[in-house]
């Protein structure tokens, strides 16, 4: 899917964004009812980044994600039922309930995987891309990271190494203007993180992160470059987190005007309008209904699933058997 997406593909991108939104809204409700655990990080308003970028990948390509990964997970094709089950700590979850929402992985679809340590997956992504290069596999790694993560040491080490060795790796920065509660202007010495690409001798591109097609196109270019053996690209997607940093956010630091200014740029209604113009409002309504049904199924599956048995901890800490 490396050319401009067909209308059918656009419809699918839209539906996937809608699935992410509805899934997170469901999580929000379950959280309020006390039925989920731990802080959960939603990406309301940023869905276009994860969905647009992952759509530029093949199944064999790998995605490394973050603490705010639901759009990456859904975009890469994780079954929503098993995803919700993982978030609910169920035995049927992608990680058998051991991971939780920040540590989702699904090897089958190339998600390896979520990471709750800011920037922690970037050195891992370097290793994954190295393996592709050394083994002459034509695959690439897409590594998501945030504008906050861009300030951490591991990010720098990973970019230098990937650029030095021309690894098949795309750095996708989701610049949503905030770390947890700290505004980018109080944590980054530069407004445009793409400006750092030059310091590694790689291309840096800024893209409208609220436009799923623009994100897709920019990522596709970067993926092609990586596949050609020309090395990494830094894609900076400018976006905004419309809600708090997690379910435990008590608010008070995102100025109302700022939220109000970004609200009209919400990628989902905008894409809905675009599609309605092309395919008709009925088709969009049908997509919405499909998304809602999928999320409903996923939540039901999770809630019906059993919790893991304590006995499985007896397996012990080590992987068994010689390699």
């Amino acid at each position: 899917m490396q050319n401009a997406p067909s209308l059918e593909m656009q419809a699918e991108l839209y539906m996937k964004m809608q699935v992410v939104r509805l899934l997170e809204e469901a999580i929000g409700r379950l959280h309020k009812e006390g039925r989920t655990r731990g802080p959960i990080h939603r990406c309301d308003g940023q869905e276009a980044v994860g969905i647009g970028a992952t759509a530029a990948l093949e199944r064999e390509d790998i995605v490394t994600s973050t603490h705010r990964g639901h759009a990456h997970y859904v975009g890469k094709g994780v079954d929503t039922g098993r995803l919700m089950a993982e978030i609910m700590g169920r035995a049927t979850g992608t990680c058998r309930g051991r991971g939780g929402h920040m540590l989702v992985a699904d090897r089958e679809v190339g998600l390896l995987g979520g990471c709750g340590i800011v920037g922690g997956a970037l050195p891992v992504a370097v290793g994954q891309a190295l393996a592709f290069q050394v083994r002459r596999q034509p695959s690439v790694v897409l590594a998501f990271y945030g504008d906050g993560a861009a300030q951490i040491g591991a990010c720098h080490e990973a970019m230098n190494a990937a650029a030095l060795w021309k690894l098949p790796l795309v750095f996708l920065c989701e610049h949503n203007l905030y770390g947890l509660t700290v505004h980018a202007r109080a944590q980054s010495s530069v407004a445009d993180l793409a400006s750092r690409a030059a310091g590694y001798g790689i291309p840096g591109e800024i893209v409208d992160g609220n436009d799923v097609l623009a994100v897709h196109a920019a990522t596709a270019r970067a993926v092609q470059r990586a596949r050609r053996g020309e090395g990494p690209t830094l894609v900076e997607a400018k976006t905004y987190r419309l809600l708090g940093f997690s379910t435990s956010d008590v608010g008070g630091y995102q100025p109302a005007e700022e939220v109000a200014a970004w609200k009209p740029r919400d990628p989902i209604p905008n894409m809905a309008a675009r599609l309605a113009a092309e395919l008709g409002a009925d088709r969009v309504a049908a997509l919405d209904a499909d998304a809602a049904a999928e999320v409903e199924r996923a939540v039901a599956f999770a809630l019906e699933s059993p919790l893991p048995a304590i006995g499985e901890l007896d397996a012990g800490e080590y992987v068994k058997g010689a390699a």
Partner: protein
Amino acid sequence: MAELRYAEALHAALLGEMRRDPSVVVFGEDVGVYGGVFKVTRDMQAEFGPERVRDTPISEQVIAGMAVGASMMGLKPVAEIMYVDFLPLCLDQLLNQASVLPFVWGDQVTLPFVLRTQGGAGAGAGAQHSKSLEAMVAHIPGIKVVMPATPADAKGLLAAAIRDPNPVVFIEHKFLYNTRGPVPDGEHLVEIGKAAIARPGSDVTIVASSRMVLESLKAAEALAAEGISAEVVDIRTLRPLDTETIVGSVRRTHRCVVVNEGWRFGGYGAELAATIGELAFGWLDAPVARLGALDMPVPYSQPLELATIPDAARIAAAARDAVRAGHG
């Protein structure tokens, strides 16, 4: 003496020291505008301004290194690492700078900083936000390590840590922030390096820290109902360790259970058990029982997670076994 939450007690200590000493500065992720994810630095930026209460980038190495450099030049930083799980990211600064420089530079500098952080499992925060890594820090020479269990100690030890001329790693517990207790008003200092007898008893000594003190007290309550008198020692400071109080208790009770929320293997409980085994050798009627987390990453799912950490029931069982063995 007001009744305060642990988080409020920490806030009160910090506020008191900030008002008392203009060289105290606070920095860390989200400590400024937001007031800290556990709200310990709430409203402080409004009172002291963004220069003394500073949000940092997500740069743990700089947070720790900055504490080293700024304290060397006369400030008294109280830096925050949001979760103890992130402490490994700046352990180099603790091991290769904070621990090393005062001694190796021949006493030319002191490093009066505090690094606050918090740990602990049970909240469903997953394997990367639930660890108890005190054993790693407590192994480092030249750095004091404090883990208060009560609101009063939270206040008194934090104030003492800020005044201490040495680096102090101050480890809070995410499950304690909302616990309440009586806290002395005004200036309140608790000496670093002194354990407390949280509950006196005569049949068995339970040595614990942080949240495990609360679980041990619950266990002692249950044991009392069975006629077993358990003494609970809250070590409070993990380094330097108050061996006198601990060993004194074990020499009286002749049996001991040590409880730590970190992984059992190579954990802080090993230091306790080894020290007690050495210094109370002739007094022990049973081996020191050592409880710690199961040796695996903390799983997310609740039943699995709770199965990995010690609790009152497991502590009581170990104490019972020790008492029985001691009579056998």
